[in-house]
């Protein structure tokens, strides 16, 4: 065989076009080798597999309750990297199998559900389950805490806004005030030019202009304002008449023994109660010193 091949090669070489394709082929082969280092030999001896399965397989007449095998009639067709959907598919498979098994168990009169008074050792110990519970609690607490923090942060942001507004408001007020003052200056320019026209330079008008709202007094007592009538003024401010004998005894007051309505001093010790009331006396010196040192 090799000899024959050789002779063929030689004859190919003699032809002008022959060497090229040979080279190309070898090149392609070497590239291929780089890409796939070694093709693995696939073995799938179906006949042998089936024969082996037949040798080991359980007796088909075996009751279902001996093996508890359930087949899920669907294949799992999800993206492997999509954790959530993958686990969901497994969950669905388990749920379907459990339901199928329950109905099968009912058919076979096979106890399925554990009665609530059946206690036995569990796979995970109570201590471990407690740890799991604690972790769940911790997790929910952490979520709550972070939520609160977030809210607080947002509140802070909002608070900042409020502060900004306040500052702006203050600045606006200042500007307004300056404008008002400027306006006043402009108004009073003539007055400043000939000051003898009205003599008091200190006028209320400045204060009025500065304050947010002009005072009522200024309006009431202004040059154009009306005076209240005499009687009303007397009532409001008091009659300016005799004052000096107001506290003197009169005939009536001398005869009057009633305690005064204002609850003045009254008659001392009239009932003994007054004495008790006045009992909040200044304590003695020693006591006062003691109280001081205590506090």
């Amino acid at each position: 065989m090799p000899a024959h091949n050789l002779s063929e090669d030689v004859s190919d070489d003699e032809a002008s076009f022959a060497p090229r394709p040979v080279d190309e082929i070898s090149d392609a082969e070497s590239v291929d080798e780089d890409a796939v280092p070694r093709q693995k030999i696939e073995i799938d001896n179906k006949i042998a597999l089936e024969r082996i399965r037949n040798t080991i397989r359980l007796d088909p007449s075996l009751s279902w309750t001996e093996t508890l095998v359930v087949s899920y009639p669907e294949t799992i067709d999800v993206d492997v990297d999509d954790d959530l959907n993958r686990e969901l598919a497994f969950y669905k498979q388990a749920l379907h199998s459990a339901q199928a098994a329950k109905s099968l168990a009912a058919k076979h009169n096979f106890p399925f559900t554990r009665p609530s008074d059946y206690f036995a050792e569990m796979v995970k110990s109570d201590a471990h389950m407690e740890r799991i519970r604690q972790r769940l609690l911790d997790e929910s607490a952490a979520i709550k805490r972070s939520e609160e923090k977030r809210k607080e942060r947002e509140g802070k942001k909002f608070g900042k806004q409020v502060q900004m507004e306040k500052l702006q408001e203050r600045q606006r007020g200042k500007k307004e005030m300056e404008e008002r003052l400027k306006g006043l200056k402009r108004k009073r320019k003539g007055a400043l030019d000939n000051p003898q026209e009205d003599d008091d330079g200190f006028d209320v008008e400045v204060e009025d202009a500065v304050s947010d709202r002009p005072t009522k007094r200024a309006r009431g007592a202004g040059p154009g304002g009306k005076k209240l009538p005499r009687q009303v003024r007397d009532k409001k401010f008091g009659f300016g008449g005799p004052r000096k004998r107001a506290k003197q005894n009169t005939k009536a007051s001398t005869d009057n023994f009633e305690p005064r309505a204002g609850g003045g001093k009254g008659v001392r010790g009239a009932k003994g109660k007054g004495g008790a009331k006045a009992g909040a006396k200044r304590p003695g010196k020693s006591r006062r010193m003691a109280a001081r040192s205590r506090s």
Partner: protein
Amino acid sequence: MASVLKAQKINASKTDVKGKGKRKAEEIDEEDVQVPAPKKLKNKQRVLLLSSRGITHRMRHLMNDLEALLPHVKKDAKLDSKNHLHLLPELADLNNCNNTLYFESRRHEDLYLWAAKTPNGPSIKMHVQNVHTMDELKMTGNCLKGSRGILSFDKSFDESEWGRLTKEVFTHIFGVPQTARKAKPFIDHVLTFSVLDNKIWFRNFQIIEKDPLQPNGPPQMSMVEIGPRFVLTPIRIFEGAFGGATVYSNPEFVSPTAVRAALRGEKGEKYGKRKHAEQERSERKEGRRREEDELAVSKVFA
């Protein structure tokens, strides 16, 4: 060898005729009501569970979880040697086990699982990945220790020949027989096996039949995961127990060592390129250097 081939051929011709009918019968058996036979057949399985030396804590915990879940498991001491797997069938025989689960740890990081029927095979070698044990606090389910779990296989197991064989072997190993000494009489969890991305995904769910939020409402079944969880990549199926002819090999399987080596190689390549560039640069610099002349800085400002 020739006799084996002949036997296979005969079997094939048989199965061509009979295969379908048989499988149909099996399905009916699974789903239909069985009239209690006079002589009750029993499913007798015992599993030897052991590991090689050099397993990490996570692998050990996974083994402990399996032991807790499967009451028909007999745990044995670590196997000293990785090259004498033929000892395992004898060991299983000594322990009266007809199945073996053997965890093999390589380089303290890769875990392989052998699932074998012991005296006569077959044995399946798988690579274990993504191990989460029951100790993790994220899985909140719980179940009775030793209760018999339902085995749930998805449809893809029935679609390939290796899948059917794997299903059979797993049924023997993970299905708790009714007669197991420590088995409990009720069912409260499901072991699911699903094929996805040519890998077998294992999950364990607790069955909750009553909604805890409305205990008096209509019974609604829900699931809570108990753990452990892991993913098995089938590598090879051998005819015998821990040996024999390969009847199936997964062409897609790339050993984790190869993956790591490729990564390292990539890194090394980068380093080599950088070093090469450095050297070239220094050579170029050397080539461009000018000779000393009288106007050199060092001479002018001496």
